[in-house]
């Protein structure tokens, strides 16, 4: 990049892909591409097999007991819109409250904001501190003080600060109050171990492209107890059983929730990504390496004069460092770092309300993956110092 080796530190936006993922997508389109489920030819069978094998593999990866609880979507945003829409009509009633945190990504905030007008619900926000973490006492007090909360929708971990929320504890307390729980796992599935059965959540959503898979494919885990009452999100081919001119019966789950031709190549690519994580590398060791790099990055950034970090501290963190410098615009920082080959993200990171509350227009965010190296972290730190020297 611009005469310098690329140092890619924007993994929270999207990850780079293993060769096996790219090869699998090419293999799919070169050898077995065909439409799925109702073909009577071998190509269709092969394609369906790969699609359903991907579903199975994903169920296994996130600890879902029932393969039919895994629904393919276009991504996390699609999954969250799916739930806001279907829970909005079938589950939430006017006056009901939905609980979120202040640090939710716009994709897990805007669909619910829309329901305020469309469905007469209220939104209640759990505050986070400057490290992005929640106050568990305040959470318990809130649950005790209200009886109108029907749903908690929460990120597994924050894309802004990297703070990992204590989901198991929160879900247990929510369920004790009869509150359903939806987890936005876009970041969490990448850096934390996920077991939806152990967590006890009702829904868990994530994207393929952050998990070393391709773009355009996502997963929505739906606990089977919702099958009877949760309506489809989209209608048409692939999700029906019988169609008359004036009425329809739907297919069984999960197909009832998958209208239209799916992104089979995407599912195949995601399966290859999970196989890579499970079979090719030692995932625990990879996560340890991420934490090691994260601490190196965090300590390095904290040393630099004038830099303030959102996050850090000693609670559980994804390897993400968001920071700002008084008197220096985040746009200038990111643009000049790009000039040195460093890819980071600058701006509001889809968390506008919280940044505004904190009086910040934006931050620079460096986010790591297991394939980053110590040399890259050190180069980033040197580049940041050099750039700050030119800007201050």
């Amino acid at each position, binding site marked *: 990049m*611009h*005469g310098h080796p690329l140092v890619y530190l924007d993994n929270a936006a999207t990850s780079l892909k293993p060769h096996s993922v790219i090869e699998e997508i090419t293999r799919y389109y070169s050898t077995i591409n065909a439409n799925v489920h109702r073909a009577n030819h071998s190509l269709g069978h092969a394609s369906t097999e790969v699609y359903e094998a991907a579903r199975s593999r994903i169920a296994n990866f996130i600890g879902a007991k029932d393969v039919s609880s895994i629904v393919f979507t276009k991504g996390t945003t699609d999954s969250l819109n799916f739930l806001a829409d279907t829970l909005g009509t079938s589950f939430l009633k006017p006056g009901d409250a939905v609980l979120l945190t202040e640090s939710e990504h716009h994709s897990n905030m805007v669909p619910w904001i829309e329901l305020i007008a469309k469905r007469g619900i209220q939104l209640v926000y759990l505050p986070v501190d400057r490290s992005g973490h929640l106050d568990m006492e305040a959470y318990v007090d809130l649950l005790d003080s209200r009886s109108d909360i029907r749903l908690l929708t929460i990120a597994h971990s924050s894309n802004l600060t990297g703070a990992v929320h204590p989901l198991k504890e929160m879900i247990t307390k929510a369920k004790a109050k009869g509150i359903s729980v939806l987890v936005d796992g876009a970041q969490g599935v990448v850096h934390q171990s996920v077991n939806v059965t152990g967590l006890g959540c009702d829904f868990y959503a994530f994207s393929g492209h952050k998990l070393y898979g391709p773009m355009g494919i996502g997963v929505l885990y739906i606990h089977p107890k919702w099958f009877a009452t949760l309506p489809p999100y989209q209608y048409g081919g692939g999700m029906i059983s019988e169609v008359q001119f004036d009425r329809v019966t739907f297919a069984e789950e999960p197909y009832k929730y998958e209208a239209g031709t799916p992104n089979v190549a995407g599912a195949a690519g995601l399966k290859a990504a999970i196989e890579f994580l499970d079979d090719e590398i030692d995932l625990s060791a990879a996560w340890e390496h991420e934490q090691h790099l994260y601490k190196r990055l965090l300590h390095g950034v904290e040393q630099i004069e004038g830099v303030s970090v959102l996050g850090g501290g000693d609670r559980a963190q994804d390897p993400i460092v968001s920071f700002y410098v008084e008197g220096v*615009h985040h*746009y*200038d920082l990111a*643009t*000049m770092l790009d000039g040195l080959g460093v890819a980071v993200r600058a701006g509001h990171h889809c968390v506008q309300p919280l940044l505004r509350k904190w009086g910040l227009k934006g931050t620079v965010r460096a986010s790591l993956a297991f394939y980053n190296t110590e040399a890259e972290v050190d180069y980033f730190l040197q580049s940041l110092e*050099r750039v700050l020297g*030119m800007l201050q």
Partner: protein
Amino acid sequence: MMTLKDKESQLIEDFGMFEDWMDKYGYIIELGKSEAPMNEEEKVDELLIKGCQSRVWLNANMKEGKVHYRADSDAVIPKGIAALLTSLFSGHAPDEILEFEPVFIKEIGLAQHLSPTRSNGLSSMIRQIKNYALAFKTKV
């Protein structure tokens, strides 16, 4: 007075002196620093350029048939680029400004280096420069 075309050629030549993009950024930052900032009262929302990731204000006035521009930003690189644009386009008649098709953005590599956001801030600035010229032309 040099024509817009001549000034643009000079600009491309000036940038050609720098090999490294860090040096070019340094030059852009200096251009911005040497430009007088706008008064706080002048930095109103109506003067903001849309499509920039930072805030960029652009104002213009007409004197003796020539348009004069001034700009400011809360980020230093956009301020430098705005300064580059205001010095290029200031002091010319509306018609000359309207007919001028800039090539320097590509020639000095600005297009590759500044991220096209949802709408491109740099082309928005040039469009606004031309809009001012058009407004002054029709008033005269």
